[in-house]
C-alpha cells in the first residue's frame, strides 16, 4: 500500500485558520461567554503574607443587595468532599531511581486556618455583577493573627525560623540529588576551579488574558460544563469530578480561545474547582474572571533559584567536573511537585560533555505566590548558571567563550549520546540527534563573526563606547509523556474530523494539525476539522505543557490514521473489487495504483462502513470509520539552539541596546515554518523581558511590591529588537514525523546570552553579572560611574 501525495502540507507556511475570527473580534475567550442568569464571583484575598485566620465575618457582605452567596474556607470545608492530591506526580520509574524527598501539602480551595501568601483566597462572594461582588468583598472583615513572614529562601532553610507549613516542621518541602562520575576526586585534582553563586529571579508568563472560569450546571442531567482558560482540560475534569462527586461523564471541560498560557495556565487552580462547585450549588451559571491585580498575586510565579556552582577545568578549558547545589523558592504551595527543579538539574550541562556531575537541590516554601512551570520550566535557571560559568572559564584562561564551548560540545558524530542520568520520565537521557557545534557557528556568523566583532569592540572601547558579544547554548528535552490522545474519524461527507487532547493558547494548532492530517490522508487542510481542548471530543487527553503537543499529538494522529487507513483500504478494496496491495490514497479518496479513474471517494467508503442494512464492509470488518490512539512516547526528544547577541551598553545611564540578536535553532522537522518562527521569537522576547525588565519583588513582610503593570514591567515593541533566525533540522528518530517540541525553547537562553554580552561589554571594568535581572543602576554602579 503506497500513499501518493501531490502536495505536502507539512513544511509549508500555511496561513492560520484561527485568524479570521481573532482578527474580526469574533474570538471567544472565557470572559466573552454569556449564559442566562449568570452570576459573578469575586474573591476576598489576603492582604498579609503569613497569618492565622481567627475569624472571617461575612455578615455585612451577605446582606448587600445583589449578593447571592458568600463563603469562607471553614464554610466550604463543611460542604466539600476531601480534596484529592492534585499535583503532577513523577512516574514510579523516576521515583525509584532518583533519591528524593517530597512532602507536598495540598492547597485548600479557600484558606481555612492560615493564609500563606498575599493574594491567597480567603472567601468568595457571588453576586449579580462583578462590581457588586467586589463592593461586597470590601465589607468582609478578617481577624488575622500575623506571623513572621518567610521571604528569603536561604534563610527559610535554617532551623528555628517561621514555618510556612507547620505540620511539616520544615520549609524544605523537597530535595533530591543526582550524580555521575566522581566529582569530589576530579574537582580536587582539577588544574583550575571556579565557584560562583548564580541567582535567577522570580518572574513569570503574565499572559495578556488573565485566568477565568465559568461553571454551568445542567439540572436535567445533573452535569456540569466548565469553561476555563486552561491548558489542561482533561486534568481539570478529573479533579472537578472528584470535588463535585460526579462521574467524569457528567463533567465537561472546555477551553475556548485562550489568550496565552506559557505554563501559567498549565495546572488546576482552586478557582477552577470552586466556581463549578458554586454553579451547581446555586443552580445558576457562575463566572469568575481574574483581574490583572489578582493575577500578579495569585497566578503562579516561577524561576527564583539560587545556584552555587563549582566547575573544574583544565588548561584548555575542557570541563572536568561540575558540582551544583541549588535552592528553589517555590512560594506557599507547589502544584507541580518536583518537576521544575529536576528539569534544572538534568538540563544544566546542556550541549557539553561533562563526565563528572553532582547536582543537589532543595525546594523551599516561602510566603509568596506558589511557583509552577513557566516557559522553560527550570531550564533557564540552569542555563544561566552554566553559560555564565563557561564565560568565566574562558575569562580565566583568556580564551574566547565561543572556543571554550566548541571544545566542550558533544559533536554530531557522537549522537545518539547517553548522558548517564534519568529524565523526569524515569528514562535514561539520550541526546537522539543534533549538531550543536554547527548551531554555534551559524549563530556567530549571523551576528557578523567573532573576530570582526572583537575589532569593532576594541575600537569602541578606545572611544569610550562599550560593545559586547554574548552567547547562550542549550539543549531541551521535548515531547514528554505520559501520553496524548487523538481520535480520527471520516465523516459521511468524506471530510476528516480529528479530536485531540492538546489545548491551544495561540500556537496555531488548528492549522498545524490540519496540515499533518492532510498529508496523512492525501487531502487538503480545508477538508480537515481539528477539535482540541474539549473533554467531550476525546475521552482521554493530557494537555499542553512542556513543549509536547506537536510531538505527541502528531504521533497519536499518525498511529490512529494508520489503524483507520487499514480499515479504509479494506472497505475500498471491497468496493473496487481489488486487492488492498493495488490501492493508494489519492485526491481525497482511494484509487487503484496506475489506473486513472478507478477510484472511490472517502465519502463513499464512509457510507459503506456504516452499521446495519446495506453496508459495504467485507466480512470481519467492524462498522464505523473512527480510530483513537493514545501515543505513549518512549521518552523525550532533544532540541538545541544557540543564541548570540551583540549589545551596546551606555555606562552612564545603564541602558542596554541590543544591536543584533540571532538564534540558530533545531527543532527537527518543521511543520509550519512561519508559526515556528513565531514561537521562537515570542519565547525569546519573554526571555529578554526576564533579564532586563520583568520581576516579582517582595518586601521583608512578604508584601508584593509589583502588584500592577506599572511595577511588573513587560517588554514592549520598543524593547525587543528584530531577531535573526537560522534553522537547522535534525529529524527526531523517536516519532513518525521526526518532529520535536518548540514552544519553550526561545525563552531558555536569552538571560544568559544578554548577561554574557553585558559582562563582555564591561570587561574593562572586570565585572561579572551573575544574577538576574540586570538593571541600569547595576550597570552604572559596576562601571564605577558614581
Amino acid at each position, binding site marked *: 500500500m503506497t500513499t501518493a501525495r501531490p502536495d505536502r502540507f507539512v513544511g509549508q507556511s500555511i496561513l492560520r485558520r484561527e485568524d479570521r475570527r481573532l482578527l474580526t473580534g469574533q474570538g471567544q475567550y472565557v470572559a466573552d461567554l454569556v449564559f442566562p442568569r449568570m452570576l459573578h464571583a469575586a474573591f476576598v484575598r489576603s492582604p498579609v503574607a503569613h497569618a492565622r485566620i481567627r475569624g472571617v465575618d461575612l455578615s455585612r457582605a451577605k446582606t448587600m443587595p445583589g449578593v447571592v452567596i458568600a463563603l469562607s474556607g471553614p464554610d466550604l470545608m463543611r460542604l466539600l468532599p476531601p480534596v484529592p492530591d492534585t499535583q503532577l506526580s513523577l512516574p514510579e520509574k523516576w521515583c525509584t531511581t532518583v533519591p528524593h524527598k517530597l512532602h507536598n501539602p495540598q492547597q485548600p480551595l479557600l484558606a481555612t486556618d492560615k493564609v500563606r501568601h498575599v493574594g491567597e483566597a480567603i472567601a468568595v462572594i457571588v453576586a449579580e455583577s462583578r462590581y457588586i461582588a467586589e463592593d461586597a468583598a470590601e465589607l468582609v472583615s478578617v481577624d488575622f493573627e500575623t506571623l513572621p513572614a518567610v521571604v528569603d529562601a536561604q534563610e527559610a532553610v535554617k532551623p528555628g525560623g517561621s514555618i510556612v507549613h507547620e505540620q511539616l516542621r520544615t520549609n524544605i518541602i523537597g530535595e533530591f540529588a543526582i550524580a555521575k562520575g566522581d566529582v569530589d576526586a576530579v574537582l580536587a585534582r582539577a588544574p583550575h576551579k571556579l565557584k560562583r553563586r548564580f541567582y535567577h529571579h522570580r518572574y513569570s508568563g503574565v499572559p495578556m488574558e488573565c485566568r477565568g472560569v465559568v461553571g454551568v450546571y445542567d439540572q436535567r442531567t445533573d452535569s456540569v460544563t466548565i469553561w476555563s482558560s486552561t491548558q489542561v482540560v482533561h486534568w481539570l475534569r478529573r479533579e472537578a469530578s472528584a470535588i463535585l462527586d460526579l462521574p467524569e461523564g457528567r463533567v465537561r471541560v472546555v477551553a475556548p480561545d485562550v489568550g496565552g498560557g506559557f505554563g501559567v495556565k498549565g495546572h488546576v487552580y482552586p478557582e477552577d474547582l470552586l466556581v463549578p462547585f458554586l454553579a451547581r450549588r446555586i443552580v445558576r451559571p457562575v463566572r469568575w474572571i481574574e483581574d490583572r491585580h489578582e493575577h500578579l498575586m495569585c497566578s503562579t510565579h516561577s524561576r527564583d533559584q539560587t545556584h552555587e556552582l563549582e566547575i573544574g577545568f583544565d588548561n584548555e578549558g575542557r570541563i572536568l567536573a561540575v558540582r551544583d547545589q541549588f535552592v528553589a523558592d517555590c512560594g506557599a504551595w507547589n502544584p507541580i511537585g518536583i518537576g521544575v527543579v529536576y528539569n534544572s538539574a538534568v538540563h544544566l550541562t546542556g550541549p557539553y560533555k561533562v563526565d563528572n556531575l553532582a547536582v543537589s537541590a532543595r525546594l523551599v516554601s516561602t510566603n509568596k505566590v506558589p511557583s509552577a512551570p513557566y516557559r522553560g520550566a527550570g531550564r533557564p535557571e540552569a542555563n544561566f548558571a552554566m553559560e555564565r560559568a563557561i564565560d568565566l572559564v574562558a575569562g580565566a584562561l583568556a580564551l574566547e567563550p565561543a572556543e571554550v564551548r566548541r571544545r566542550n560540545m558533544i559533536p554530531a558524530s557522537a549522537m545518539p549520546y547517553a548522558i548517564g542520568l534519568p529524565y523526569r520520565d524515569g528514562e535514561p537521557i539520550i541526546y537522539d540527534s543534533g549538531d550543536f557545534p554547527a548551531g554555534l557557528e551559524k549563530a556567530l556568523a549571523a551576528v557578523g563573526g567573532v573576530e570582526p566583532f572583537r575589532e569593532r569592540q576594541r575600537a569602541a572601547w578606545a572611544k569610550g563606547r562599550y560593545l559586547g558579544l554574548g552567547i547562550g547554548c542549550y539543549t531541551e528535552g521535548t515531547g514528554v509523556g505520559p501520553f496524548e490522545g487523538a481520535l480520527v474519524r471520516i465523516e459521511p461527507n468524506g471530510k476528516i474530523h480529528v479530536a485531540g487532547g492538546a489545548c491551544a493558547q495561540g500556537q496555531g494548532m488548528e492549522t498545524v494539525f490540519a496540515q499533518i492530517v492532510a498529508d496523512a490522508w492525501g487531502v487538503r487542510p480545508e477538508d480537515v476539522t481539528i477539535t482540541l481542548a474539549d473533554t467531550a471530543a476525546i475521552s482521554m487527553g493530557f494537555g499542553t505543557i512542556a513543549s509536547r503537543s506537536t510531538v505527541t499529538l502528531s504521533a497519536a494522529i499518525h498511529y490512529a490514521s494508520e489503524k483507520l487507513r487499514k480499515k479504509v483500504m479494506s472497505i475500498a478494496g471491497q468496493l473496487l473489487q481489488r486487492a488492498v496491495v493495488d490501492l493508494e490514497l489519492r485526491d481525497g479518496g482511494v484509487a487503484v495504483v496506475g489506473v486513472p479513474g478507478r477510484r472511490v471517494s472517502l465519502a463513499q467508503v464512509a457510507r459503506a462502513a456504516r452499521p446495519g442494512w446495506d453496508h459495504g464492509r467485507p466480512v470481519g470488518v467492524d462498522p464505523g470509520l473512527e480510530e483513537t490512539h493514545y501515543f505513549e512516547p518512549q521518552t523525550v526528544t532533544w532540541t538545541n539552539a544557540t543564541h548570540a547577541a551583540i549589545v551596546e551598553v551606555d555606562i552612564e*545611564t545603564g541602558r542596554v541596546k541590543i544591536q543584533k540578536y540571532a538564534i540558530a535553532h533545531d527543532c527537527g522537522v518543521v511543520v509550519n515554518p512561519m508559526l515556528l518562527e513565531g514561537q521562537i521569537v515570542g519565547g525569546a522576547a519573554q526571555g529578554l523581558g526576564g533579564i532586563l*525588565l520583568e520581576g516579582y519583588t517582595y518586601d521583608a513582610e512578604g508584601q508584593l511590591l509589583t502588584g500592577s503593570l506599572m511595577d511588573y*514591567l513587560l*517588554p514592549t515593541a*520598543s524593547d525587543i529588537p528584530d531577531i535573526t533566525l537560522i534553522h537547522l533540522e535534525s529529524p527526531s528518530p523517536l516519532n513518525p514525523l521526526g518532529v520535536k517540541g518548540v514552544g519553550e525553547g526561545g525563552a531558555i537562553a536569552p538571560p544568559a546570552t544578554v548577561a554574557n554580552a553585558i559582562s563582555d561589554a564591561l570587561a574593562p571594568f572586570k565585572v561579572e553579572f551573575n544574577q538576574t535581572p540586570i538593571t541600569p*543602576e547595576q550597570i552604572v554602579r559596576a562601571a564605577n560611574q*558614581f
Partner: protein
Amino acid sequence: MLAGGQSLIPMMNFRIATPAAIIDLNRVPDLDYIRREIGIVRIGAMTRQRKIEFSGVIAETLPLLRDAIKLVGHLPTRSRGTIGGSLAHADPAAELPMMLEVLEGEVVAHGPSGERVIKASEFFRSLLATALTSEEILIEVRFPVMPGNAGYAVEEFARRHGDFAICAVAAVLVREGERCVKARLATSGTGPIPLRLKAAEGVLEQKGLGNAAIEEAAKVAARAVEPMNDQNGSAEFRRHLTRVLTGRALRRAAEGSG
C-alpha cells in the same frame, strides 16, 4: 475632577480612590483651545496632549513642549490626557510639570472667589500637592513664547518608552556669541516636585557654554536635587542621572542655539 482620566480612573479601578461624586470637566465648554497672543501662548486646561503634540502653533512657539509631550505615555493616552489634568495631578515623574518650570509658565486657577494667576515657581508645593485649593480648578496654562534663537532639549531616562521619568532634564539656552544670556534648566523624577536648577543656570550664564562650563553646571545640578529611593532607582542613581542628563541636554541645546 475628571479631566483625561488617565490617572484618576486607574486609581478608582484599584479601589484606592473612591469619590462619592465625579465632576466631568470634559463637559465644560471652552476649556479646549490653543491661542497665540503677543509674546505668550494660552492653552485651555482641558486641551488634550495629543492636540498640543500636533499643533502647528506649539511647534512654532514652544518646540520644547512639543518634544517633551511626545515622551508623555503613548499616543492613546495623549488622546485623552489633558495639560491641566497633568499639572493638577503633579506626578513627581511627569514631564509637563517640568515644562511649566523650565518655560516659566503660569496657570490660571478658577474658584468661588474668582480667578487667580499662579506662577510655576509657586504652583508645585509638595508630593502630588499643588497650590490649588479644593474649590479651585485650572482653566488655563500660559507660556511665554520661546525665543526664536533658543536652543532646547529634553533628556529623559525611563525604563521603557512612554514610562514615567526616573530622571528627566529640560534645557532652554539663549546664546549671544560666546555668552549664554539666558539658561533655564528644570528636572523631573528627582524629587517630590519638579525643580528649577537655578544654581546650574547661574554657572552657564556666568561661564558660557563650553564643555567645562557644561560639566560644572551638570555637577551643580546633581548637587541641587534631593531624590527619592524607590523600586526604579536609588537616590544616588537619580542624582547621578541628573548630572548625566543635564550634560546631555545642555550639549544638545547648545548645538541648537544661536
